[in-house]
């Protein structure tokens, strides 16, 4: 309860702050629609030239695009703004203010910033997934929906842990912007099912940049491609990621010199 109140306070502040810039909502919507257009046109172009892509039908690729957009929305509204804030805090020592507060430091750095307008992508993603389901089978069972929701949550958590670990590197490495850019770029690979890539790249997209668990695996749950071992592995990787990122964060914190350095 205590943590929920903390979350509520921080998010309320972020929302109040963003409400000053309401025109950004219009811009974000336009930008989300452009990105959706790129995704749809890409799928259209593939199926103009072929009947299926690595065994995936048009409506099934729509599911992948929907999940990709949704997870990107979560990442850009709830995760990335915090990571930028954290990185700058480590550079200029503003992290001091966070560390002196009598709360869990990892929780605080994870909830300082929230950009509500970016949630437009989450809505767009859900609409695309809904359309895809109606074209696939019409309905999905409650069990399938539940598994999908769990895997989406796992995907979001894995992405969060990944970014905490990457940003923690800032304690040792300066100029992390380019590293950020690189991983943003790698995430683009998730527009397509990971299975089409060569094995070495699939491994990279599973264990180095967690695109497979964040996008392809939830999409598999909706397209009847999911096996029990993959589901269990997703749960295991999520737990592992949570533990490892937390350990790494406190390890990095030990190297923090503060504003006076």
């Amino acid at each position, binding site marked *: 309860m205590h943590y929920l109140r903390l979350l509520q306070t921080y998010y309320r502040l972020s929302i109040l702050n963003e409400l000053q810039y309401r*025109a950004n909502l219009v*811009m974000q919507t*336009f*930008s989300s629609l*452009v*990105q959706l*257009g*790129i995704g749809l*046109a*890409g799928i259209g*172009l*593939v199926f*103009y*030239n*072929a*009947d*299926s*892509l*690595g065994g995936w039908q048009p409506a099934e690729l729509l599911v992948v695009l929907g999940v990709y957009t949704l997870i990107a929305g979560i990442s850009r509204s709830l995760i990335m703004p915090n990571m930028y804030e954290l990185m700058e805090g480590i550079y200029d020592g503003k992290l001091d203010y966070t560390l002196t507060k009598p709360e869990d430091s990892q929780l605080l750095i994870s909830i300082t910033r929230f950009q509500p307008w970016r949630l437009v992508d989450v809505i767009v993603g859900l609409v695309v997934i809904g359309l895809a389901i109606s074209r696939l089978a019409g309905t999905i069972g409650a069990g399938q929906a539940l598994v999908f929701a769990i895997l989406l949550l796992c995907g979001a958590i894995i992405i969060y842990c990944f970014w905490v670990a990457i940003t923690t590197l800032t304690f040792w490495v300066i*100029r992390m*912007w*380019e*590293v950020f*850019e*690189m991983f*943003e*770029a*790698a995430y*683009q*690979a998730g*527009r*397509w099912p990971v299975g*089409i*890539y*060569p094995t070495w*790249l699939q491994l990279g997209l599973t264990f180095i940049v967690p695109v497979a668990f964040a996008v392809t695996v939830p999409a598999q749950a909706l397209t009847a491609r999911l096996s029990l071992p993959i589901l269990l592995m997703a749960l295991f990787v999520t737990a592992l990621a949570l533990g490892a990122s937390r350990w790494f964060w406190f390890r990095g914190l030990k190297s923090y010199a503060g504003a006076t350095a």
Partner: protein
Amino acid sequence: MYSLGGTLRQLANILVAEYKVRLMAGWQYRFQQSLGLMGLMFEAVIYLVVWTTVAESRGGEVGGFTTGELAGYYIGWMFVRNMTTGWSPQWFEYRIREGEFNTALLRPIHPFFPDISHMMAGKTTWLITLLPSMAILAWIFQPQVTFVAWSLIAMAPALILAFLLRYTLMYVWALTAFWTTRITALFELYFALEFFFSGRIAPLALLPEWAQTIARYLPFPWTFAFPLELMLGRLTPNETLFGFAMQALWLTIAVIAVRAIWRRAVRHYSAVGG
């Protein structure tokens, strides 16, 4: 006394000096800078894999490209893409906000020129990751290219013109940062169109007929697909001449636009910071 030769030589000296300074400044961060190129490489690999998968499902060919030729296209793609990057409006906005433009405007030269040198220095640093990556991808994907001598020679001017054209078009967009950053969404639309019509998402031959026709009259293919297909020896002499004509036409339009907008932009500029 005024002489065109003298002015040009002076300009060339400035461009070279600026290039050296920027190269040395960037070289300190060569590792981090070269990572900036990874986005570009990921894009190439993603679409190479997508179109190879499509070609394989059709028996090894799509839009006149075999899987080996697709690999050649996307490995060349990386090189042409590196050579034709320009400044983004976001970078301009940053420079204005931070007051960096104050110094740029005080210098007795149009920032357009030193900015070119700055860009070229970045491209040089990028080659450290670009060339080995191209070699590794060539080893993995086994490209198949039949080089044609005249076509390769024609590629050099085509690539330079493609760079100048794309650079100038992006400069036009970047200059809008002097007024507002509220139209970021419009650049996104522009870059989305470019992504489809320039030959980046796929070789233009894979696009539907109507889209190929539209592309011919837009600036996009002439900033990207044209030098790339010349490199791969896929164009006829007539297509090549048409390409150069379109490059010249669009470059003229872009230069006129930059000059007109620049004059208004500078008048509008009010300095920030110090």
